[in-house]
């Protein structure tokens, strides 16, 4: 008994340490976002007085181009990229997991290659290409590279999920009178759903957090996303420290990610395929 209690206590301690370690910077940013310029560097973890000026500043409709417009860009670009990447990735992953076709190895190899390619080295050529074909500083100008780099991730995650689904289920559906489309829609898709949601979260976070492409392939608020826009924050005047407003913006853009994960978490039920086949 004592042994298990000790063990539980030990694990609890380790977990608490990890959580504190991970959450400390986040809480610090929250704390900074709630401080005024004069108390910013007073070293207090808990602000003496709560000051919402930073939030008011960045959410002020008069300053639409400062933060709100980039926020709309971020949400739009990340959602569209995620949707397209997940749909394409699902189809590709299903084919990779279930069919044997000529060039399958090549396809997997190329997608692996794309995933490993250093993105920095592609920024300059992409900049030139997008400028000459008129995609520079547009939504598609960011959506396209995001899809490109998110697809390998999506294909890899999803094909692992598809491989987990026993093939016999599809055969059983066929024997039960289903057309291939019905078999996919009624049996395979519901079982692959956790995989699809997991992939969607990963891809969304990738697009949402990207700074490199966002800063290189945009120039105005027409397509600039929040991570890029943050670097243009100047504060109320040129001489004022923007730290407070940057922190406020950082807190706000963390919220969609948290919501996204919480919303889909319920659907990511591990072991959904348990009971399909013996084993």
């Amino acid at each position, binding site marked *: 008994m004592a042994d298990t209690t000790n063990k539980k206590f030990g694990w609890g301690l380790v977990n608490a340490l990890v959580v504190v370690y991970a959450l400390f910077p986040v809480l610090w940013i929250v704390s900074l976002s709630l401080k005024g310029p004069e108390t910013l560097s007073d070293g207090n973890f808990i602000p003496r007085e709560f000051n919402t000026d930073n939030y008011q500043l960045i959410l002020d409709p008069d300053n639409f181009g400062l933060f709100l417009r980039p926020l709309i860009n971020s949400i739009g670009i990340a959602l569209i990229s995620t949707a397209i990447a997940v749909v394409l990735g699902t189809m590709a992953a299903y084919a990779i997991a279930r069919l044997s076709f000529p060039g399958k190895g090549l396809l997997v190899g190329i997608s692996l290659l794309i995933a490993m390619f250093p993105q920095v080295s592609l920024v300059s050529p992409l900049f030139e290409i997008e400028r000459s074909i008129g995609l520079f500083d547009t939504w598609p100008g960011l959506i396209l590279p995001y899809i490109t780099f998110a697809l390998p991730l999506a294909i890899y995650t999803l094909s692992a999920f598809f491989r987990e689904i026993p093939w016999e289920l599809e055969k059983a*559906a066929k024997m039960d009178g289903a057309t291939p489309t019905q078999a996919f829609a009624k049996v395979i898709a519901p079982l692959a759903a956790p995989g699809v949601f997991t992939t969607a979260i990963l891809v969304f976070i990738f697009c949402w957090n990207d700074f490199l492409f966002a800063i290189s392939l945009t120039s105005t608020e027409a397509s600039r996303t929040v991570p890029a826009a943050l670097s243009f924050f100047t504060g109320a005047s040129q001489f004022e420290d923007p730290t407070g407003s940057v922190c406020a913006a950082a807190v706000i853009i963390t919220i969609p990610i948290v919501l996204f994960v919480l919303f889909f978490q319920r659907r990511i039920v591990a072991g959904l395929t348990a009971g399909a086949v013996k084993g």
Partner: protein
Amino acid sequence: MAEITLDKVSKKFPDGAVAVSDVDLEIADGEFVILVGPSGCGKSTTLNMIAGLEDITSGELRIGGTRVNERAPKDRDIAMVFQSYALYPHLSVRENMAFPLRLAKVDKATVEAKVKEAAEVLDLTQHLDRKPGNLSGGQRQRVAMGRAIVRSPKAFLMDEPLSNLDAKLRVQMRTSVARLQRQLGTTMVYVTHDQTEAMTLGDRVVVMRGGMVQQVGAPQFLYDNPANLFVAGFIGSPAMNFVPATVEDNTLRSPLGDVPMSDRIRRALEAADAPREVIMGVRPEHFEDAALVDESNLPTGGKFTGQVEVLESMGSDKFAYFTVSGERATSADLDELAADAGGADLPGGAGQQLVTRLSAASAAREGSNAEVWFDADKISIFDPAGGRNLTYRD
């Protein structure tokens, strides 16, 4: 309900491997046919071709008199039970069983009634709202059967449906499968590698090997009259004993001693134009402790004396294991059987194992010598070259 006809059906994979070659089989309406053979013999491929899950390379498959080679599984109106059960994990037992009916667009009330009826037959009524993940192996197996029977298909196909169950449950389910088939009267094709299932379940057994049908017949006929060495060794448990023998006038000289030939054996060998060197097969149950055999019968059989190495007493009878010195019987068929049983590299020493089943009254003891007798009329003689049974009776 319908008859199924396989007319020279073959399956060749794109890599050139032939899985099934020229299978001819007529399955009558309502018949229970078992496909049996070692792994890789093509039995599952044959079943998948009947199901429509594998293309037929050549030959014709007819269900109810209509050619169905090109039809998708859903248009063949046959149900299949998979070895892994393949239940839909996201659906409840009720939904699993209703699935084929839903796809067939049957109205709700009928679906409900049919599922209820099937659940009663299979004793699943109280589990209808559970998910397959919460069921035991035997219950999952019954759900799989339920999914197959709800829509009253023309035929059932079963791909080793009991092999994932533990031994006791398997025996129990075996009986219920047989009862279910009789109750429904639906044509059933059942694949297994277990010869006990094959012997106990079917009206007819099809023994396959290397993609070819070796013999088709009622279980008892196959046991009494194996067409070749392979069937002889595969059917029956424990397996038939094989020893090399030489034909000399009216006797067979073998490591089991000289065996007088009965009239039936002699005539069969003459008719078949047998070679001098043959393989003799004796089933374990045709042996008896010589001390328990009636005096008058002794001369019409063979006698073998040896040290009992292992004695297994089953209560009803005793299995005595001997080692027979001398050469082993060798043939391609026997090698394959040994490989399938995993016995190819058993430490057998110089000799060959002989299994005998003696009655419980036998005084044989482990480690001491015993004399066993076998009926010379019940032996089978095989051609070592092709494995053909030279004493085969039509």
